[in-house]
């Protein structure tokens, strides 16, 4: 069920960064590819009672227990339509694995630095909190997510 992560390309051109792009509630986002451990299709997730609301539960990744975090909930977005299949991007933080639940994982993109911009000052707080900046793509904008902050549960919207 799992799609193995694509080969890591260390020969990245200096001016370009490689991102895994994904979509949450219609918004295109990116996560640096080097921080991504795995990409999973829809998985059975065990609910964890009494856990913080952004925690969707835990799932089994080849024998490791991974805590799943609902990115929609984390970004204060409405829950997905019932029955919609969601994918996960597995990231590592402090030796622990976390799965970020997203609507769809798109492609891996190499983006030129010149397309990068800081967050516009007017960006809503719950996005600004977890966004490191914006890439101007053709026809859409990509929000660069800050994984460390997403996993820092002392930061709450």
């Amino acid at each position, binding site marked *: 069920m799992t799609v193995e992560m694509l080969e890591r390309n260390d020969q990245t051109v200096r001016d370009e960064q490689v991102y895994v792009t994904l979509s949450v509630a219609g918004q295109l986002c990116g996560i640096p590819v080097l921080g991504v451990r795995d990409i999973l299709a829809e998985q059975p997730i*065990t609910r964890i*009672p*009494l856990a913080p609301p952004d925690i969707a539960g*835990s799932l*089994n990744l080849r024998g490791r*227990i991974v805590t799943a975090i609902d990115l929609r909930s984390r970004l204060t977005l409405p829950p997905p339509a019932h029955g919609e299949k969601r994918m996960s991007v597995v990231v590592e933080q*402090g030796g*622990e694995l*976390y799965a970020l639940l997203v609507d769809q994982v798109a492609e891996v993109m190499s983006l030129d630095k010149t397309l990068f911009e800081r967050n516009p000052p007017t960006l809503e707080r719950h996005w600004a909190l977890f966004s490191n900046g914006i890439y101007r793509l053709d026809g859409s904008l990509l929000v660069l997510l800050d994984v460390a902050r997403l996993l820092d549960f002392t930061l709450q919207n």
Partner: protein
Amino acid sequence: MDELLADFLTETNESLAELDVALLTLERTPDDANTLSLIFRMVHTIKGTCGFLGLPRLERVAHAGENVLGKLRDGALSASPDIVTQILAALDRIKAILSSLGATGDEPAGDDTELIASLNAAASGQEPSNTPTAPALEPPVHAEFAEPPDHVAEAVQEAPVSHEPDPAHEPMAAEDPDSHSVHGPGGQAPAVQQTIRVTVDVLEDLMTLVSELVLTRNQLLQLARAQENSGFTAPLQRLSHITSDLQEGVMKTRMQPIGMAWNKLPRLVRDLSRDLGKKIELTMLGAETELDRQVLELIKDPLTHMVRNSGDHGLETPAERRAAGKPETGQIVLNAFHEGGHIVIEISDDGRGLAAHRIRQKILTNGLATEAELAAMPEVQIQRFIFRAGFSTAANVTAVSGRGVGMDVVKTNIEKIGGTIDLKSIAGQGTAFTIKIPLTLAIVSALIVEAASERFAIPQISVVELVRARRAGDGTRSTPGENAIERINDTPVLRLRDRLLPLVSLSDLLGLGKAETPESGAHIVVTQVGASLLGIIVDRVFDTEEIVVKPVAPILRHITMFSGNTILGDGSVIMILDPAGIARATGVGAAADNKLVKPETIEGTASADRMALLLFRVNGSERMAVPLNLVARLEDIPREKIEFSSGIPVTQYRGRLMPLVSLTTQDSNSTPTQSLLVFADGDHAMGLMVDEIIDVVEDRMEIELASARPGSLGTAVIGGFATDVLDTGYWLTQAGRDWFSARSARSSVPGSRVLVVEDSAFFRNLLVPSLAAAGFKVSTAANAEEALRLRDAGLMFDAIVSDIEMPGMDGLSFARAVREGGPWANLPMIALSSHTEPHHVEAGRDAGFTDYVAKTQRGAIANSLRQCLTEMAGA
């Protein structure tokens, strides 16, 4: 062989191997101060330990070697090849003696005067006329040194051969093959030849891998069950068996005989019997019973505590025993055995038994139960009250003949590893404690249950029984002979064999929502947490399964209902319920427990790294922490009990007026009760009023932001949150009394708190039990810096015992630092050193030490402490 001796041999052999390398480094770079002090410390430790263990010959050689090294370190000599050769010769002699020691358990007879003389000559700066002869050396030993210092090889070839075979050296010669093994690749003493040392990490990794394998096997088996007559069935069966064998094998590597946890007890009992004037015989049965090393580590302290209690409170004096018609010598029996996946440890004595009437009194005074309730309670249930926290207060530990000191901590520690403890006591005949603990913590058997369509695992060890019951809907009457859940208001209970069993609904508890209907039958999992029973209502009960406990992610650790999580055979993740956490959350057996916290029971285990910290809230939302062992008691008093005396809030507490100081600047009279942290010292007590007591956590206290605000030492991250650390000294003086001078006027010496600063873990382990047995409350610090951190954290002691030779800040600088100022400036300080020459003693006194005691005189330390403390009290 004596366990201490075996430890010593292993440790010393390791440091000797390091020493060889270090000495050769020294020869190349004679001015390297680091290497020099490293070598000096190692030889020094060997010497000190020898003295302690009563190995005079080894001590003399090490001492002579140390003298030379001391001169080198002080710069009086330089590390010429000759001198290094001398020291190597001394080390070789030490090795030879050690190898014989390892084989026979005794120091071999032999004459080292020549070697010592030549070392002394070297120390006094004379050129050695000839290199020392080494009768105890034999060729294999030198082979190692043959390369850089040629002198050694030469010296040896000339020396021993030309020597007359002295009968005194015969035993050594006989040990030749063994001493060879000392320097063999294993570097081990003969006593442990059949074993290899593997780091615990390797074993832990293996265990993790095996756990994964077990899970995968379970998954495969589950799949195979669905497809009958598949070609996989046979090989899978085989894989399954091999996995089980492998699991067992790896578990075995982690197994250690329980005797390892007992080896210090005979000494403890001996000291105890001498100090108390009682005759005690300790019998240990089943010492070879093996259990997981992790579990072993965790039960060591509780066991020690219980044996000490048995000797101290359980057994009578010889006179009392005679009067009772018992043999003068009291018996303490430790018995360990396997029982169905568990280890059972019994600790029994033939002493006076628990004094039931005193316990009753205590229960009534503490308001733990009413007289009527007590009358209805079976004897054993009354006795179990001794497991309640703070059941015995300092004042009546000596007065009450029963036990009670720290039994709550013993119980908590045992429950922490999934174990249970119970007791049986017959007045006049003795008391027996029974501890039941799981063999291992890594793989446990668990019952899988379901509530509101979610599955959970409950560790089998805490499950007593399963009961099917009908959920009684409104107005439905239960028919006789049928179990039905009844409700008192909204609280569910079950009549179980003429007793009311408190129940808790798992789906309510975990906020899973209502999936239960009155019609559906419910299952009740009766769990035992300590002495309390609690029924957990679930919807369904599945099978039991062997599960591998994995810790939950850090962001979920605050949920106390879960002890971990695991992956089931079908690949799904499942949370493991912690019955102790559930009981705490529901207040079963814990409601009364939280009233009193008895910090003294942390004695001897206080670590500067991690300590028990009490978290509380002030000013509505500010988190503050204070080391738990500073707090005598936690109280909740009704607000109307707060009175005012000359404008100062006071309350009547245990028949006295206790001043109160508010930590909160904004007044919150919203709650009917006021939480207090009570600080007590002798007859004095004061209460700090706080908003709410949050928790007790074990954590590091590293102050990261210093505070400008009086009353706070600064901010530390505790339990994952920024937390202000209470400046206890500041608040105590706010109570309007000179707290610290009141303390020093106290004359009671026993129970005084002593801080031991000693870098050698080996020595600490020797010293702490003996001081604790002498009645002191001992805390330890591994170095001077750590000790000073304790001071800055506001911990207070009555005396300090410090080693002189320590890496980093040495004992002399430490003493000077203490004397410079701060709350410890006037404490008696006792220096502990193997150097007791007059100029050393003088240097110690100059640095500020009150007394100077030789490391080898264990009794002298306790005596000196007593003397210093009495002098302080008299001053």
